[in-house]
């Protein structure tokens, strides 16, 4: 009994001790629980939310691109897609078989689907087919019971209603590259596209818009449980271009099958009303992927459909350059307008003879006559007196061989050679180089856009820059107002002589471009040009058998024309380059005439004025002239520099091959002096009320 009491006593003490220990341990756990749940609760709550909430961005719809009248040039279209969620069907293959009975699936599509279904987790949607038609959609909806796991989803894709007509201006969009995504993670969003060329590229930031966000609750393996919050993205701004889509189409129709480019500018503010590089390509093919065959076809075509020849095609300006030469001479007082030079058909410098295009010569000519007849010898003399560096400075000032502020990527600068540039290439400048530069040959290379800018600057006297973007969202860009653009700082008298000469080229009997005369009474001023792509040998010329029209296509000279109209109140300027068109007067002048007719009849710049605003050429007729009247009589501009042999000491060998899109010299020309910044009374454009 005593043992029992003792047992009980020891046991009681020790049991109580253990109970105390147990309570203490559980108390410690409770304290720890308090620490985890209350003290550090906020931190763990954050971590739990990070676990469960997955924020995803939604790609915003891309902004539209419109022409100046609001016609959409790039828009978005609803893209109906069929998706497959493997876990929602018991038999993926049966579902796909049923689907294929409604929308046929090719074998390679089935193979791709099998791959993707196996690669992804079973709850991740796999794209079965994009760009479903409305009928397909309806059929899928009707047959939904037979298509477990098929889900129809709506996205957007970019469309270009005019297809290839605006390809070079608008550019195209494509999925972002990995480098793009590294720069801006937003671009990783599914379905987002990035502008790859044209306005799509230069205005990409504007068009892109702001991404929306959706907060999703996801579980441990990433399956979306439900949507917690959704903020729709903000569509990118609309970009309104200065382009008139109707005029663009008219230009395209006129150029037809030629490998040619044309630019029409509003010569008061530099707005690009039409810019055509023919032939073109279908930009929407880049959205879905270009086939190998298509790619080969494009790259093998010698008319270079992928290159925007208007901004990246480099051509010797030929005789169209003569106004720049003359202006350089006048402004530097190397010549006077009335001084007469005699043209015997050639000019001998040292032992080299430089020919005029007219065998036998023009006789005695003043500046106006030199321009009207496009006399080569006259301008050989002007160039000789003025010197290359002044000519180059003037050319740069007028927009050639220099960087223009055009809002397109990959516009080329061309080249106006200077002594310094030639020295940089390890050669001394020869007087012969100056002589051929006087007629826009030699090393000189310009783009059609630069030629149009040149014509617009001559017409307006303003240092305007060609530009496409007229409106972003609802705000008119400052460049749309003519007074934004400063004067070139050239004397009105000199400019007037240039305009008069250009008027005579088209409108006076004996001018080189009678084919460019407008049939509606409006007077157009212009200048022809032909740019050789191949040297003419002495033998051919001396034997009198030279006829460039008989050359193979790719060796024929390019035909050029620059113009503005109306002569007395310039409103539109244009440049046309017909590749291998042979002669500017025959091939380019009629095109220029028809384009100007279309421009004047549409009058896009005038129509855009608010009601009551003056309209230039109000009496312009709607009809465009027939181009069937072209006579082959006037062979103008076929300037030939007859050099001894290639690499000869004198200038003869300097006629460079200038084929579109491929430049011999990559470097920019020496920059000319900055255009004058002061607005003077010599403003070429008669004062016009601007709203």
């Amino acid at each position: 009994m005593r043992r029992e009491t003792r047992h009980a006593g020891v046991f009681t003490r020790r049991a109580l001790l253990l109970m105390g220990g147990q309570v203490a341990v559980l108390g410690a756990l409770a304290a720890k629980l308090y620490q985890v749940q209350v003290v550090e609760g906020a931190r763990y709550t954050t971590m739990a939310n990070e676990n469960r909430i997955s924020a995803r961005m939604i790609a915003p719809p891309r902004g539209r691109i419109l022409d100046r009248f609001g016609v959409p040039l790039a828009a978005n279209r609803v893209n109906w897609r069929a998706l497959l969620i493997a876990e929602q069907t018991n038999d993926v293959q049966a579902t796909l078989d049923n689907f294929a009975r409604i929308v046929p699936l090719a074998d390679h599509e089935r193979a791709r689907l099998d791959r993707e279904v196996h690669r992804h987790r079973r709850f991740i949607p796999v794209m079965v087919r994009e760009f479903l038609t409305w009928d397909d959609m309806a059929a899928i909806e009707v047959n939904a019971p037979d298509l477990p796991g098929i889900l129809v989803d709506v996205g957007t894709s970019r469309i270009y209603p005019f297809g290839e007509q605006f390809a070079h201006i608008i550019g195209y969009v494509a999925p972002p590259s990995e480098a793009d995504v590294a720069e801006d993670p937003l671009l990783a969003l599914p379905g987002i596209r990035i502008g790859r060329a044209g306005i799509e590229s230069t205005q990409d930031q504007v068009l892109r818009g702001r991404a929306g966000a959706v907060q999703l609750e996801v579980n441990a393996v990433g399956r979306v449980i439900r949507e917690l919050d959704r903020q729709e993205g903000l569509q990118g701004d609309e970009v309104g271009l200065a382009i008139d889509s109707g005029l663009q189409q008219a230009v395209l129709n006129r150029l037809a099958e030629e490998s040619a480019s044309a630019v029409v500018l509003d010569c008061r503010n530099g707005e690009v009303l039409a810019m055509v590089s023919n032939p073109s390509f279908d930009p929407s093919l880049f959205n879905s992927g270009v086939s190998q065959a298509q790619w080969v076809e494009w790259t093998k075509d010698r008319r270079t459909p992928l290159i925007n020849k208007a901004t990246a095609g480099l051509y010797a300006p030929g005789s169209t350059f003569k106004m720049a030469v003359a202006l350089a001479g006048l402004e530097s007082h190397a010549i006077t307008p009335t001084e007469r030079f005699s043209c015997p058909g050639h000019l001998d410098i040292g032992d080299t003879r430089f020919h005029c295009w007219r065998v036998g010569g023009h006789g005695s000519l003043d500046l106006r006559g030199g321009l009207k007849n496009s006399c080569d010898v006259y301008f050989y003399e002007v160039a000789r007196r003025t010197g290359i560096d002044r000519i180059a400075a003037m050319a740069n000032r007028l927009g050639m061989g220099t960087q223009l502020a055009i809002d397109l990527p990959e516009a080329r600068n061309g080249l106006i050679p200077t002594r310094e540039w030639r020295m940089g290439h390890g050669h001394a400048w020869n007087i012969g180089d100056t002589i051929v530069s006087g007629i826009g040959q030699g090393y000189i290379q310009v783009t059609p856009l630069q030629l149009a800018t040149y014509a617009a600057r001559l017409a307006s006297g303003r240092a305007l820059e060609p530009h496409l973007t007229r409106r972003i969202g609802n705000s008119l860009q400052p460049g749309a107002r003519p007074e934004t653009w400063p004067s070139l700082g050239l004397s009105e008298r000199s400019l007037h002589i240039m305009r008069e000469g250009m008027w005579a080229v088209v409108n006076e009997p004996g001018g080189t471009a009678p084919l460019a005369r407008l049939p509606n009474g409006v007077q157009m001023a212009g200048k022809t040009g032909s740019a050789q792509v191949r040297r003419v040998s002495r033998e051919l010329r001396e034997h009198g058998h030279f006829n460039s029209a008989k050359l193979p296509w790719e060796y024929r000279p390019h035909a050029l024309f620059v113009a503005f109209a109306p002569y007395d109140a310039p409103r539109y300027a244009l440049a046309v380059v017909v590749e291998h068109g042979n002669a500017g007067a025959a091939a380019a002048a009629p095109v220029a005439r028809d384009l100007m007719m279309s421009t004047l009849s549409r009058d896009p710049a005038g129509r855009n004025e608010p009601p009551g605003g003056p309209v230039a050429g109000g009496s312009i007729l709607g009809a465009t002239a027939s181009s069937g009247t072209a006579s082959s009589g006037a062979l103008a501009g076929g300037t030939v520099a007859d050099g001894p042999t290639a690499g000869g000491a004198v200038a003869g060998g300097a006629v460079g091959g200038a084929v579109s899109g491929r430049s011999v010299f990559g470097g920019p020309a020496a920059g000319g002096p900055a255009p004058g910044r002061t607005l003077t009374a010599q403003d070429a454009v008669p004062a016009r009320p601007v709203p």
Partner: protein
Amino acid sequence: MTNDRRLLRQTSFDLTTKVLRISWLYVLLLCALAAVGYTALYSAAGGSPEPFAARHVIRFATGLVIMVGVALVDIRFIARLAWPAYVVALGLLAAVLEIGHVGKGAQRWLDLGGLQLQPSELMKIALVLALAAWFHRASWERIGNPLFLIPPVIAVLLPVGLILKEPNLGTALITALVGAAVFFAAGVRWWKFLLVALPVPFAAKFAYEHLHDYQRARIDTFLNPESDPLGAGYNIIQSQIALGSGGMWGKGFLQGTQGHLDFLPEKQTDFIFTMIGEEFGLVGALAVMGLLCLIVLGGMLIALRCRHQFGRLVALGIAFNFFMYVFVNIAMVMGAIPVGGVPLPLVSHGGSAMITVMLGFGILMSVHVHRDVEFGEMPDRR
């Protein structure tokens, strides 16, 4: 002395008396705990009685029947079965090493026609019974004799060794500690515990170097869970996030994001307490801990009220075993001790553990029912 109620011993009771002597309050506590389990499992299944909660009820009901049945068995009969039970359990432990199924690293079970039996669970009860039977007849002086302690020490070490070999470090440690608790309550001298405890740090170091990689990983991730957030530390981190984000009042029933979105692993078994903490907050978790504490202390009170040494030691051992379950599980989900695959009894989903635990509570209740029976020392075998 004759007035002392404790001396008024009876040799046997009729069935009605026995049923009345069952502590129905204690049974109510167990039912409350099972109800907590039902609620948590209902939530763990995403708001459905299937597949966990409904089976939980059936198992608990079965367990309750077993418990009451065992409670009515005379404690003296149970004492006679102590050593045979121990031998059987030891045999099962040995068998499980040979033919047992291995799951999740180390937990071994025998498949007895659909019922998965973990012999280690059974062993702990059998060990408590065997040790209680051994010390029941021992005098204070005898307990002081080191030689007398050798057989029970061997009785502890044999199963501990076998469980270690499974290998299941957590259960082995619990088994050893439960044994030690019975030794302690029986009156083994303090200094002997110190003597055993002193070399433990060195043994631990030695053991760590001979542990399996996964066991070592558990200890490593315990010391620094963030070192491997997607691997071994993932469970602990997600469990802590779930508890912590529950805050004071919890996210609400069925609203636990960690549990319902599957960030919480094994939420219906080992991490059921985390589910409760996430959905019902600190308040709910402390309430459940309070209930668990009442059950532990209730068991200890049954031990204290018993008037024979065998009953006292058995009750204490079973209560302590339950306490160890609770402690290891809750400390584990909070990241306070290495993860050890120990369920929360009567709350976690799992059949074998439920039946074993209820068997233990049946024996505990038998002690309570037979607390006053005339149960002298066992015949001295010497």
